[in-house]
């Protein structure tokens, strides 16, 4: 069962996304800010969903730290940003994210991206 780390500060979004992912058969761990996200990445989940507008340490910084650490650098990260702003995509990829999606999340699309990165199904 693939394990996904969801780093998201908004409780409602966290609840929705984690429940939907669990129903699709993923094991979901949640972190509520960037620092916790970086910490929990050390448990080596199969994939990380990273909100970019996080408190304490934002998603860009958290991603940079995860990608700089050889123990966690190979974990694929999908960035989630609140605004569909062009340029954000660029910034996410520059920070080392492997893919990018906008919020509100379109679940089937996100699922396809997750599966593509995990090399399963889809």
């Amino acid at each position, binding site marked *: 069962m693939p394990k996904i780390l969801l780093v998201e500060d*908004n409780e*409602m*979004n966290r609840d*929705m996304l984690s*429940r*939907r992912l669990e*129903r699709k058969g993923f094991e979901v761990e949640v972190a509520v800010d960037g620092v916790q996200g970086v910490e929990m990445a050390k448990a080596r989940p199969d994939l990380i969903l990273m909100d*970019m*507008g*996080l408190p304490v*340490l*934002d998603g*860009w*910084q958290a991603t*940079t*730290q995860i990608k700089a650490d050889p123990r966690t*650098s*190979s974990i*694929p990260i999908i960035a989630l940003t609140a605004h*569909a*702003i*062009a*340029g954000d995509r*660029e*910034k996410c*990829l*520059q920070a080392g994210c492997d893919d990018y999606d906008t*919020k*509100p*999340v379109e*679940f089937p699309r996100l699922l396809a991206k997750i599966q593509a990165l995990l*090399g399963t199904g889809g």
Partner: protein
Amino acid sequence: MNTPSSDRSQSNNESRLQKFVENAPAAIAMLDVQMRYLVVSRRWLTDYGLPETIVGQSHYDVFPLFQAWDAAEFDRHQTIYTQCLSANRAICTEEQWTRADGTIDWLRWEIQTWENDSGGVGGLIMFVETITETKRAERSLYAAKEAAEAANRAKSTFLANMSHELRTPLNAIIGYSEMLVEEAQDCGYTEIAPDLEKIRSAGKHLLSLINDILDISKIEAGRMDLYVERFEVAQLVAEVQNTIRPIVEKNRNHLHVSLAPNLGSMTADLTKVRQALFNLLSNAAKFTQQGRIEIDARREVVIDEETTSRRPQSYIVFQVSDTGIGMTPEQMENVFKAFDQADASTTRQYGGTGLGLAITRHFCQMMGGEIRVESELGAGSTFTIRLPARVRPLGKMEPIAPITPPAPTTPTTPTNTVLVIDDDPAVRELIVRRLKKEGFSIETAPTGKEGLQRARELCPDAIILDVLMRDMNGWSVLSALKADPALAEIPVIMSTILDDRNLGFTLGASDFITKPIDNQRLARLLSKYKKRKTKTTLPHQILIVEDDALLREMLRRMLDVAHWGTIEAENGREALEMLRSQTPDLILLDLMLPEMDGFEFLQQLRQTADWRSIPVVVVTAMELTTADIDRLDGCVSQIVQKGAYSRDELLRQVRDLLVESLSEDR
């Protein structure tokens, strides 16, 4: 030879002249060179409450305030008169004047010399007008205009904030209803699924309305930015076509797409072009039933007569036409205005905010393009968007002054060399052609063995390595590279058709790219290393001048992560003291500081020759006035508005500016 008639006419003339002066509806006085009154109009006497006996008296005695009240005023006026006597003329368009009873008036005056019979200066003629009322009206108009502008700004800001607030609960409505639809289907409650779907789609619709309001208020508040990037036009149209299909099919319309073969790519704000096309197509779909909707894209090359260069300019033209209800000429006139739908009943019948076309036109204009409409009532409409194929970024964050690059302390690094190891000549050629354009110097090797040899000879800045090669597999080459201490540090980008990234990373590849190779991604990866390299030879230090400890801390941590050194100061005075011992590459400056504020700090900074070239990025929560901006002009590289953004956004922006400023050291 005075005849009686000429005598009479002379006296007639004199009496007329006398009457002319006396009755002139203006305060006029004629004085000699000693400033004694010769002639005055009646208005002069009434306006200043003077007796007729002033003729023959000195101007300074008539207006004793000059001496008794204010010696400085006396001096000032005397200077004006003396200067005027030699310079012919003096005009003052407005001047404050305190009357004897203490009331304050605004005056406009003109003084001019007059010539005596012998051709010399006989004295002065003065004209004074009271403009107190005009002045008062002007002031209240200005105040009203300021108030209206402030109210409008406040409204736009409110709308922008509110729209954001509205979206949060709406996302929950959409998200949870979507979940419930899935759950209902999974658990077999199929009868409630359509109802849940209605909640979801109403939520989606509401979200799009709110997004429109957010966009228009951003545009009005001058906060809409432009993000210019390169993209394939055909790919964009295909993407829009996919999104729009369900909306087109709802009214049983047919969508036809025609793309010119020479479309190629364009450089513009992808999101805005996409939104513009989506707006036009969804309008077409909304106002057409069982009809035909067409989207047509082509490239136009014209010699622009207006530019002096007369170089051919390339434009991308999108045309969206429908066979729908069409518009009257009156409706066409208003179609691009915000808050002004074709008519109020349109809203009820067809829904929408009516902002879509206003937003679309703004977007087109921001990108240096235009939108036009042709329409016939009952026959359909055609909207045409014409955009430059290369949009120049002219966002509101344009630097006020050209960015001063940090003074290079070492000679600029020579071109970056990239070694491409790939057995496919076509791939090699492709990469060489593409990366040469980006300013890299490229070397190639057709086999793994040769690749290793070339790597040892060249010691390149980066290596692009194919995973599947005939003689030696890429992973073995990578292992060999990482085993050689001289080569181990060189970043290797693995290029492959296999998604085998984990193997690559454990072997020490720093990045990974899949085939077919996305050139932009590759160039981006490499430029990342380019920056990293200059950084190691040239460590950057940033001085943060910020009184908010939390913000200071966040900035520092952010910069730490990106390997920038930082020093911190709480106010201008502290910052100046720090500068005496070390010179940073860039200063991040808050304007509202205790003790010594940002403006004063800048002033002092620019007075010292050694510090003048340090780029300064201002971070401010203040709404800057034109006067403020003038004060900053030429002193700072960038201004970041604190209040307009959340803290996260602010940090993000500051970081981008830093990267921009620091990477310009070429």
